[in-house]
């Protein structure tokens, strides 16, 4: 019962955050909306019993990535968006197609999935997750650490100012 209420509430928050994201004019407002969406999704993760993922979501996504976004917006002095319209394709074809895409997947999800069970309220063990991560998926795990290293190097190289050019 309470799960149902929680689900719909969180879903509503997420959707309204997403709508706000795409409708706001100033990017900083969009960024804040995105944070709202992420928190709502973290809540949904908790409902699904994935507490570790929920925590990672808040810490990494909300705490690191979105902060990065906000910093960049501040650094670049991004202002309100100007209204150009150079792509007819995007304007006239994109919206219907996006709707079709979403609707298609939603329809499939709701009609073709009798086999999916309903939510009951179990909670996953972080212990089990950690065991799987460090045993079966140790190699991808190490790879991602290298990936992060490369990303750091890349970001540094790209964003560095040329010496002498100011």
């Amino acid at each position, binding site marked *: 019962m309470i799960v149902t209420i929680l689900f719909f509430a969180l879903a509503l928050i997420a959707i309204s955050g997403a709508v706000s994201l795409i409708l706001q004019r100033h990017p900083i407002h969009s960024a804040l909306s995105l944070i709202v969406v992420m928190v709502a999704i973290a809540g949904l993760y908790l409902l699904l019993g994935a507490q570790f993922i929920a925590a990672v979501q808040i810490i990494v996504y909300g705490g690191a990535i979105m902060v990065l976004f906000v910093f960049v917006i501040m650094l670049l002095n991004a202002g309100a968006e100007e209204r150009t319209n150079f*792509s007819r*394709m995007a304007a006239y074809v*994109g919206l219907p197609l996006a709707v*079709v*895409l979403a609707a*298609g997947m939603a329809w*499939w999800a709701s009609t073709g999935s009798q086999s999916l069970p309903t939510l009951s309220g179990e909670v996953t063990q972080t212990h089990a997750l950690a065991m799987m991560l460090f045993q079966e998926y140790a190699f991808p795990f190490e790879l991602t650490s290298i990936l992060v290293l490369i990303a750091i190097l890349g970001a540094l190289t790209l964003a560095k100012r040329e010496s002498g050019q100011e």
Partner: protein
Amino acid sequence: MFLLEHLWIIPALPLLGAALNGIFLRRQSHAVINTVALGTTALAFASAVELFREFSALATASVPWVKSFFPWIWAGDFRADYALQVDQLTMVMVLVVTGVGFLIHIYSTGYMEHDGGYGRFFCYMNLFMFFMLTLVLAANYVLLFVGWEGVGLCSYLLVGFWFLKKSATDAGNKAFWVNRVGDFGFLLAMFMLFRNFGSLDFTRVLPAAASAPADPAGHFGTFTWIALALMAGACGKSAQIPLYVWLPDAMEGPTPVSALIHAATMVTAGVYVVARSHIIFLHSPIAMAVVGVIGCVTALFAATIALVQTDIKKVLAYSTISQLGYMFLACGAGAFSAGIFHLMTHAFFKALLFLAAGSVIHAMGGEQDMRKMGGLRKKIPWTYWTMLIATLAIAGVPGFSGFFSKDAILSATFLSPYGGKVLWAIGAFTVLLTAFYMFRLIFLTFFGKAEYDEHQVHVHESPKSMLVPLVILAVLSVIGGWQAAPALWGGENHFDHYLAPVFADAASSAEPSTPAMNAHTIEQQLTLVAFILATLGFFIAWWLCIKNPKLRDSLANTFSAPYRLLVGKYYVDQLYAGAIVRPLVWSSNYVLWHAIDEGLIDGTVNGVAHLTSETGGQVRRVESGNTRSYASWIVLGAVVFTSLLLWLAVR
């Protein structure tokens, strides 16, 4: 045996003359050109005489003598060599072609004296001799066709010799195109011959045809189609109905050309082919009837037109068509050797008539209209007497060559099972017409008072180079028929005997329906009738041209509609122009050129290129450089892919 082993020399000699004159010696003096041209032609004639001697010494079993010089076409089962053949028929043709050709070459040295294209003229004349000799010496239909086409080419070149004159070039074109129509028939005949007999050699086809069963009467069998196709080709080359229209126009060429090509040699090629293929014609009663009817009708038709022509050369042109009709009438009646005999005598007197007419024209300074001549008898006596002899020959006056040949044809028509009394009657009536228009020509040109201004035109006799051939041909026109005097006049028909081995099968299949003694009497009576008709024609001409000239005009006024029909040559040229030429030109222009070539072919090729270009142009718009557009394309792809997956999952 030298020439028999090296038959190729005979056509090669004039070819050499043509090559030398045409390539190297065009701008040399007349003496040089004459030496080459006349020398090669004289050598060719001498070779022909020598060949006659060698051939006569051959044993009967070696005839026809065939010599293959190199394999020319060899494709699967089909083989056509460069092979030359000699039999009695070939011998007659070769002697006529080289002999008359040589005389005309001599004449041309005088006639073309002041022409700027002297060297070119003799080059073309020699080239013509080469092709004509190839035609008569060929041992298979393919090589014959080479000669056939070649003489058509030379006719085009020589008729359009004065190419700066539009009427001459038009006439040359017309000659070539009308011939081409006939050549199509000839080609079809060759295809059918190959299909039925597997070869085109005379020595293979003709004996095979002889042993095959004939087509039944009234039935369009294989032989009928082949013979009709050959006849179509012959109609084109020998100017019979319906393909005669080029010959009167061909008078645009110089007079020696008219004499050589359009009187003595090229136009006889059709008769030669029919005679050579006689066994095929004999196997098809329908074809024999067709040949006879075409020959007869053409003879009458052309004679009627000749009655009212005013140009001296046009009268002779229509006369040629008419006489060729006689030759085909003979072939249609089964009397092939009579047809060839008339071919030979006609070569003599018609060439003489044309050369003499050329002499008249030369004397009158270029005038060809007979109404502007008159009274030339005393002024150019040599021309007058030779032309008179030729006229007596063509009219069939007894003793002259034309008498014997025409009589042979008419009696054969009357007596033969293929002929009919009707055909004979038409032929006899044409004798009257022939006598009339020929004597009309003589009277208008040489008698009466001069219709020209004597101060403007200085009538003078032609030079010796032109007169000597006239005299020689006149002699031949007289004695040329004597060796074929039929039995009833007390002579042996040597000519028929000579050609008998060639036409042996003709004689056997044409059973006379009347016994021999009866035939003799009938022949005598027919000869008498023909003689009376010829004399009647002479008198009518004398009455209308000498005694009572004004009667001509009043007759023309009284019968004005038929008169205009004849003067307008039955409006056949206009008919062809309207019914055939105009639609052809229109369809070539609008259908073949605009619609198919420009619209369809160019359109397709350009269209493909255009389509490619357009497609490229449209596809290029995907790469717009605009990120949002790329994004929407990605979404489109995602939608397509997802739909596909969903559809597969649902199924």
